[in-house]
């Protein structure tokens, strides 16, 4: 960023705009991950309201793998930083 001679109000808007997009991205990542792992791990007959042991370990692994896919796709897209 230019230190002083640029219009600071406009520049600040840009920075806040970027920060907002970043946060929207994180929220969307979390929501997609949550819905996708629910689809993969939870049987949709809902015989009980507790998560059973199989579902719990499936969730943990699903989150971990989703995270890895996020990093892998990020590399392919040329991002040089982790998803968060």
């Amino acid at each position: 960023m230019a230190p002083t001679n640029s219009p600071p109000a406009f520049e600040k808007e840009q920075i806040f705009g970027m920060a907002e997009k970043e946060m929207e991205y994180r929220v969307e990542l979390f929501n997609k991950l949550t819905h996708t792992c629910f689809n993969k791990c939870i049987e949709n007959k809902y015989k009980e309201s507790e998560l059973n042991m199989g579902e719990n370990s499936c969730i943990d692994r699903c989150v971990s793998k989703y995270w890895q896919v996020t990093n892998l796709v990020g590399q392919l897209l040329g991002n040089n930083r982790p998803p968060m």
Partner: protein
Amino acid sequence: MDKSMLGDLDSLPEEDKLRMSSMIDQLQIRDSLRMYNSLVERCFTDCVDTFRRKSLDKQEETCVRRCAEKFLKHSMRVGMRFAELNQGAATPD
């Protein structure tokens, strides 16, 4: 979604902190309302399939309750795992 996942505000000047914090609040409100809507959609889609009456029967109601409770527990667990990964606490297989 936990507010702390959205960013660290300590390094900002006071005025910007207020604005950023308000932005985060707005995003969280929007996110909870969207979550509410999509939870209703999911549990309705999975639990309600007959339209011979205009009221939920007992079985549908039980299904919706379980679906919603299960989703909330699921979502909390995902949140914990997600936070660990964010903090680099992930351990190898």
